[in-house]
């Protein structure tokens, strides 16, 4: 009985992230537009876009292979799984131990791997540019991310997100330099990974500096829908991750009952809103940088992560 209940909660989490993801994207777009003085689309616009795309006929290039057709689903699945493994409204869900923070990072890596391959499948120069740059950015973002993961895990003594979140809620955390560094690093990585300004611009096409969009240029119809959904999920994932690690308040504990869950969900919604607002603010106040400045930008994240880690090692011994 408890098992079924747990499964339901886990299922709810999966559904929740899937449902909220386009909304978050929509909210960010709306706020950005407002900040720039435009009216902006409705926050529900991403849902409409997705539905429209799924119903459209998919156009494939003549030499598209099976990989091209399966990759969107795979990418979507991996990011979805990763997103549902991050505690949102409650910690200690039944399957939360099936993958820890490192595995979640690696899952995102898998998704990126297949997307980059899909970008090369047709054999266009744009696809190649996109894949190549995406992988270059990822090669620096992923280690930076892992450094941050290390820092957090060392503080909490675990790589399990549930445990970490529970620890962060507890009284032992205190203010630590390492964690601050990790937070900055994580934000930088999140920006890079989600193809946001200043690393990439999600709203542009036909620009030689684009990265993510160049990669998915050949996609259309339902495949594009999956990819768009996956991007939305990824943004949500990072926001929830930051929330879970650095603002874990309000989260329900394992098997806490429906009321606690509802409260947790509410808090989660608030955090997402806050995160979206901050992102929009940041994006409107900064300009896009050249692609070859990106490694330096990410290098900063890597250094911050490593610095935080080393500080941690050192302070622990004092």
């Amino acid at each position, binding site marked *: 009985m408890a098992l079924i209940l747990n499964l339901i909660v886990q299922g709810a989490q999966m559904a929740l992230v899937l449902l909220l993801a386009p909304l978050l994207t929509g909210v960010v777009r709306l706020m950005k537009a407002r900040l720039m003085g435009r009216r902006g689309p409705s926050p529900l616009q991403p849902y409409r876009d997705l539905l429209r795309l799924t119903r459209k*006929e*998919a*156009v*494939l*290039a*003549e*030499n598209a*292979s099976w990989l091209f057709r399966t990759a969107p*689903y*795979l990418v*979507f*699945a991996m990011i*979805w799984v990763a997103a549902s493994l991050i505690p949102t409204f409650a910690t200690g869900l039944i*399957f939360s*131990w*099936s993958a820890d923070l*490192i*595995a979640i990072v*690696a899952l995102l*890596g*898998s998704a*990126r*791997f297949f997307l980059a*391959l899909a*970008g*090369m*499948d*047709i*054999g*266009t*120069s744009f696809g*190649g*540019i996109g*894949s*190549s740059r995406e*992988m*270059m950015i*990822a*090669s620096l973002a*992923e280690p930076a991310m*892992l*450094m941050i993961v*290390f820092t957090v*895990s060392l503080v909490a003594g675990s*790589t*399990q997100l549930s445990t970490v979140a529970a620890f962060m809620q507890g009284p032992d955390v205190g203010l630590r330099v390492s964690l601050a560094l990790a937070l900055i690093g994580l934000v930088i990585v999140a920006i890079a990974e989600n193809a946001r300004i200043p690393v990439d611009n999600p709203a542009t096409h036909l620009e030689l500096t684009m990265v993510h969009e160049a990669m998915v*240029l*050949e996609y259309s*119809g*339902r495949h594009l*829908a*999956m990819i768009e959904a996956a991007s939305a999920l990824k943004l949500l994932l990072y926001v929830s991750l930051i929330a879970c690690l650095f603002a874990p308040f309000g989260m329900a504990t394992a098997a806490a009952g429906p009321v606690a869950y509802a409260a947790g969900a509410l808090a989660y919604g608030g955090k997402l809103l806050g995160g979206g607002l901050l992102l929009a603010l940041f994006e409107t106040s900064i300009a896009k940088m050249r692609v*070859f400045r990106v*490694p330096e930008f990410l290098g900063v994240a*890597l250094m911050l992560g490593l610095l935080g880690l*080393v500080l*941690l090692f*050192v302070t*622990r*011994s004092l």
Partner: protein
Amino acid sequence: MLIVAALAILCLILLGLCGPLHGRLGHATSIAYAGAAGATAVLLLMGLAALIGAAGAAPVTASLSVGLPWLGAHFRIDALSAYFMVVVNLGGLAASIYGIGYGEHERQPGRVLAFFPAFLAGMNMVLLADDAFAFLLSWEFMSLSSWLLVVANHRQPDNLHAGYVYLVMASMGTFALLLGFGLLAGPEGGYAFETIRAAAPGSGRAAIVLALALLGAGSKAGIVPLHAWLPLAHPAAPSHVSALMSGVMTKVAVYGFVRIAFDLLGPPDWWWGLVVLVLGGITAVMGVLYALMQHDLKRLLAYHTVENIGIIYIGLGLALAFQAQGHAGVAALGLAAGLLHVLNHSLFKSLLFFGSGAVLVATGERDMERLGGLIHRMPATALYFLVGCAAISALPPLNGFVSEWMTFQAILLSPQLPDWTLRFAVPAVGAILALSAALAATCFVKAFGIVFLGRPRSLEAAAAREADRWQLGSMGALAALCVVVGVVPGLFVDLLGPVTQLLVGDRLGPQLGLPWLTLVPVAEARSSYNGLLLLLFIAFSTVAPALLIHRYATRATRRGALWDCGTPTSDPAAQYSAGSFAQPIRRVFGAMVFHAREHVDMPQPGETRAARFHVDLRDLAWDFFYDPVARGVSAVAGRMNHLQFLTIRRYLTLVFGALVLLLMVLAVWH
């Protein structure tokens, strides 16, 4: 058990006769490879049986009155050698089966047939040897037979050069090990491992032996900067041999290091782990960076072996560091991570080399810039190769991720280390490991994307044909194993229990009994990983939306010309190339790591010639070490060579000089 193993090895050596008999004996190729497959299968079973039975039992030993006369040849199967027997013979079995098909395409099959089984036999003998003489004899025999395989295709000067560099490096390594064993055995010649174990060397001696072991076994494994031979020799051999050399022989080298460092040398000093860790870190990142820059598919794979060896050594270094501080449990984790990666790497690297062999047979090309679009012509090969690529890039839920994950877990336990230098080094190595894992993914996006995706860049690639059933069967089995190890890692971690028990005196808790086959190295609150669930989740989340969309939205698909932002070209040369794919990474790391220089030759307006772009990349190990040594030897040889052209009077002067010198020594001596 040892008798059966010995008989199997003997069979392997005798199978070598198929080489010279080729041409007189029908089906020599099939007989040789099938025989090799049979023998390795027997050895594999032996290894498995020994490993499973190793838990409480004493190691099986035997000795023969061959080898060093007063010593005899000692053999022994303990958990460590049993585990490596499994790894080696799994790779050997796969390569043999693959060879049944691949061998038909060989131009001079006799040159491969004669030495392929001997190579397998040599590697097995190394694992069984229990005295220094038998060990080194097998070790060098392994080098010898693999050298002959590298030069099998001897008409290409490049192969000869590769073989030469390989053999000289191998010999250097053997001499280093020889010196090490000499020091361990002492002037009385106690060469049996039993004797060496009993007489624990002092700390100074042990340090020298460790350095020599790193030099000897490390050069074979391909530790930077001793890796120089590896990217030359591995691609030069026929592909199934490349797979063996890269996937299996480097593991035998790791075995050699583990045997010496963990078993024979006694308790480690604190700094051993540091040295091994740092070397492993440098090896990992340099290996993958060099791999990224290669456009020769097999050379890319070979350089990538260097990276994986680095990861394995990081695991071993952690184990040494923890063992020196008495944290046996964590040491067991590090060691298990390293050793699991040994198995994993042998699986996917063999798989990838098999794939490159299939491509080579189908197109005659190793140069990635002339390949492309093979996923259409060779769908099965492409699928297996993709699995290999994903596995080697450490993507969950495949096997490569499991061992890297365990390594990370061991790194995260390093605050338990009391030493300062280690505390700084371990996180740095962790960063390097993370960096190289990410770069590996880039590298294999490039490898798979350029070779199998896109449009064919040459006529040969356009006319490629799928590999035959033996090759596909072998690749398929390896791909399946990659998935299995990734999904139920607990099974393999449990198998490693006796090994870590033997070497560091502790083991990870039993994994198979845990619910849902989860992998929990230390404690569940700390970390856990479940490949099986992850696989199920991904499968569910892939299939469910696809079904839903196909059922309720639309499944209509139309084929059309490629879009390419509205500016499509039909020329395949307009595709992104391997070189351009690696360009961003080259810009980031280029000047520092490769001494990269770009030469652009742009014609003036009005000129009709083509513009040329040329990138010059160097392997620093060659620039800073090998070339100077080679030049030095050559210079001395040139200087000395004048002594061949002296007049008789001058030769007499030399004699006279020697006489006077000796007489003066005599006069002074009193």
